[in-house]
């Protein structure tokens, strides 16, 4: 597809050198699966970007989706500038998001050399490093990059089974460092969550990382909010609508988040990305594969039935039996659940699972046995009135337009003291709110209008800076900015010879300048990690001391030069030739791709 996005000049203009491949080295190296995992069901990667001795690099395919974030194209342009600075032409491909998911991020490997997207801010990703790190392990379904590092592999496996928190933290720190040092991907930035709310009518907004005060992943704002006026109905404007009322079998729509207001998990996540008790009040690993939990007593389902350990057991078994798509991370490692008492359960895991207590039990949805046990085909079930134990109970749902829940008064989250405990100074006490109403406004412009007109109280989605500014031009509306733990990940295709050259990856990391991007485009609303570290400093797992190659284009070029790359007179980067080519070929072989020149005792070819 066309590189009309502004890639200047045209691809074939460079002057290639006569390929000179020393004995025993091929003249051209193709893109291939260097490690063959059974998750790959294709013969060869869909990407074809081969390397030829002495040849000018072809325009480098870079893909992104401007649906991902409004500024994603700007970000791609930044990466393009970095590549241009190295003498590489970029071929930008703006793809529909679903195509990116369905075609590029599929098991036959990435379609482009660089594929960028923002991770979703699921709370679990803030609490535990696994979701972001484990995808870099061998054979993981989400490892479309074909990334492999033996040491990282080892450490990640180990940490995933290490139930000792301190030990695990150490391993995770190491893992971050290895990944950053190896430049396993370009982690360019964490973009802030910008939104706007009515601060005249309400106080007590709680900013949660990745979610802001108004997202649906956390309900802290809603349970903490205090009315400044008579009206106790809190109206949130959103642009997406729920597809169904079936949370466990949701397929990734807004319902997956919004319905959690009705349900409780065994544990919950605080705005500080810490684990806090929910339906379970305590407990933990008894041994590596056994967890015992004590459950909260006196909890009732919204229909008045008491909540017991049976419900937990039922939930897990039911999910396992019918593959509850949205709850997989929770039930997947569980072997079985035993009811130890009315409010006591034992969970037997298949394998030691370190993340179980920090990730899997958090905000996992527990459903009432008495309402689900007779459902034959839960994936095609749409409960009329979803019943949970959560802080809000279901009132009304109008597909595509409206969703309404009302306060479950007895819920512990409405207990001022409890909240003060969890939220600290952010907690506000008072009568609280009565209802939460989501209204699908569908269009940002009318959303801003409605916010200013007082028809809605908050914007449930993120806004761009200019939108937020426009919204808060009204005295009752304020812009709210909170941090984010979901990184912008520029996946690198390790099937491609160029990427396998660590010297190149390091140079790439040095050539890209996310800092000025955050400054100029995001107007400072975002943070840039030190080094290629996907674990944000907002989380408790962050290692602030990882290798950071820093932004330095001339150093980057020096690195390439030393690795044997050359430039033609139009400053087009050429693959190494002759001896240097042999060295390049050596560096990209499986087992060397994480090693630098010195590690392989290679010459300086500059």
């Amino acid at each position, binding site marked *: 597809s066309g590189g009309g996005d502004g890639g200047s000049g045209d691809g074939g203009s460079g002057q290639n050198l006569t390929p000179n491949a020393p004995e025993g080295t091929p003249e051209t190296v193709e893109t291939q699966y260097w490690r063959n995992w059974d*998750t790959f069901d294709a013969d060869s990667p869909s990407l074809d970007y081969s390397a030829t001795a002495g040849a000018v690099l072809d325009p480098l395919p870079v893909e992104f989706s401007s649906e991902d974030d409004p500024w994603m194209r700007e970000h791609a342009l930044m990466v393009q500038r970095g590549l241009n600075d190295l003498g590489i032409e970029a071929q930008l491909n703006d793809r*529909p998001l*679903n*195509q990116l*998911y*369905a*075609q590029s*991020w*599929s098991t036959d490997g990435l379609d482009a050399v660089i594929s960028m997207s923002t991770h*979703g801010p*699921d709370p679990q990703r803030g609490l535990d490093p696994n*979701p972001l790190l484990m*995808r870099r392990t061998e054979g993981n*379904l*989400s490892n479309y990059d074909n990334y492999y590092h033996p040491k990282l592999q080892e450490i990640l496996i180990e940490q995933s089974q290490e139930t000792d928190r301190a030990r695990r933290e150490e391993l995770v720190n190491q893992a971050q460092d290895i990944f950053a040092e190896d430049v396993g991907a370009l982690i360019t930035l964490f973009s802030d969550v910008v939104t706007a709310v009515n601060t005249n009518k309400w106080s007590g907004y709680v900013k949660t990382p990745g979610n802001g005060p108004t997202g649906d992943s956390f309900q802290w704002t809603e349970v903490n909010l205090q009315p400044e006026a008579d009206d106790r109905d809190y*109206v949130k*404007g959103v642009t997406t609508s729920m*597809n*169904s*009322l*079936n949370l466990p*079998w*949701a*397929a*990734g*729509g807004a319902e997956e988040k919004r319905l959690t207001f009705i349900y409780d998990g065994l544990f919950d996540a605080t705005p500080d990305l810490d684990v806090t008790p929910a339906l379970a009040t305590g407990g933990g690993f008894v041994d590596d594969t056994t967890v015992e939990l004590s459950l909260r007593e006196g909890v009732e389902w919204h229909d008045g039935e008491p909540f017991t350990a049976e419900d937990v057991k039922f939930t897990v078994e039911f999910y396992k039996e019918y*593959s509850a*798509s*949205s709850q*997989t*991370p929770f039930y*997947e490692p569980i072997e079985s659940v035993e009811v130890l008492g009315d409010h006591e359960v034992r969970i037997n895991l298949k394998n030691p699972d370190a993340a179980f207590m920090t990730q899997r039990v958090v905000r996992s949805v527990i459903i009432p046995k008495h309402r689900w046990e007779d459902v034959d*085909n839960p*994936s*095609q*079930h*749409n409960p009329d009135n979803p019943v949970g134990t959560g802080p809000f109970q279901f009132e*009304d749902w*109008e*597909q*595509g*337009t*409206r969703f*309404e829940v009302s306060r479950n008064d007895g819920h512990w989250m409405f207990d001022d003291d409890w909240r003060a405990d969890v939220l600290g100074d952010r907690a506000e006490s008072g009568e609280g709110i009565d209802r939460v*109403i989501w*209204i699908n*406004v*569908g*269009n940002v*412009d*009318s959303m801003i*209008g*409605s916010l200013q007109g007082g*028809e*809605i109280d908050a914007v449930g989605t993120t806004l761009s800076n200019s939108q937020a500014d426009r919204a808060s031009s009204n005295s009752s509306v304020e812009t709210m900015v909170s941090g984010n733990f979901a990184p912008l990940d520029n996946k690198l295709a390790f099937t491609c010879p160029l990427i396998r050259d660590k010297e190149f990856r390091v140079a790439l990391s040095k050539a890209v300048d996310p800092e000025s991007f955050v400054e100029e485009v995001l107007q400072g609303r975002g943070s840039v990690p030190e080094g290629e570290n996907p674990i944000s400093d907002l989380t408790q797992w962050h290692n602030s001391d990882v290798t950071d190659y820093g932004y330095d284009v001339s150093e980057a070029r020096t690195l390439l030069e030393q690795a044997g790359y050359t430039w033609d007179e139009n400053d087009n980067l050429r693959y190494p030739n002759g001896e240097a080519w042999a060295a390049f070929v050596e560096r990209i072989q499986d087992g060397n791709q994480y090693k630098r020149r010195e590690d392989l005792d290679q010459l300086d070819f500059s």
Partner: protein
Amino acid sequence: MSQFQRFLAKRLAISIGLTLIAVSVIFVVLRLLPGSPFEALVTSGNLNQQQINEIRALYGLDQPMWRQYIDYMVSILTFQFGYSILRSQPVWDVLEPRLVNTLILLVPALVTTAILSSALGMYAGWNRGSLLEKSSIITTTFLRSTPVFITAIFFIIVFAYNLELVPAFGMRSVTASPEGYVDTFLSIDFLHHYLLPFTVAVLYYSGDFLLLARNGIVEKRGSEFLKLHKAKGLTEMQQLARAGRNSMLPILTYFALRLGMIFQGLILLEVVFGWPGIGRELVLAIQQQDYPLVQAAVFIMALAVIIANLAADVLYAYFDPTVSTGGGSSA
């Protein structure tokens, strides 16, 4: 069997054949699409391959292609649209309210415009060369050639943003929570939201009717039978009425065809005005790759057009005393 019955039978057979082919085309196109809604789940790391397989099996996606095809044909032709993958609801439950919303917007618009524009067009054609004719032609040419979303945007900017007469977006005010259709549609608030999209739809459709009516009259104007009518001493209006009656058929057929296409909604209009209609729903379903929903929606649309086509043909044959219903009419 009378000639008309024979003609009817032939048309019916063609329509049925067309339906089958159209439905098959939809099937093929959908199967050709890479990916499925589950991909999103895989990418987010929620599902493993085995779970994906289970879910696929649930939707019959693991069956051999011919089996899927047969199942699909049988179910869709019996109006068993199945369950929406993303919405955990029967597809029809999702589509029905959307369809109603679309129809409530477009049917009145179409009827209004058919009557008003045809009348205006006839009048313009009768007074060929008049200022009225010229200006109505310019206006309608603009309205029917400009993509509807641009007209809509112009209208929004003028009437919603600048004059602030009507809201720019949605079918009901954001805080309204009506119960049932009656409550939804019988309210001032609805009317308020209805006006702008309705007007744009009326204007958008108006061009074709006006030109059709105008050209029909212009064609008839010089004809011998009108001269005879005039010689009989009929008044201008009576003559116009006769000319109108004579150029009625193309308008009627066009109306029937348009009516069939209404089931497709005016996707762009619905998007711009945030009207929760079937077109907008379909775009969403396509983006989310909700197969069953897309399938059913496209099927309904195709069926509506085919039926409308049939109706148009039959109407034509029925209302035109001179049409020969024998052979293949030259459409």
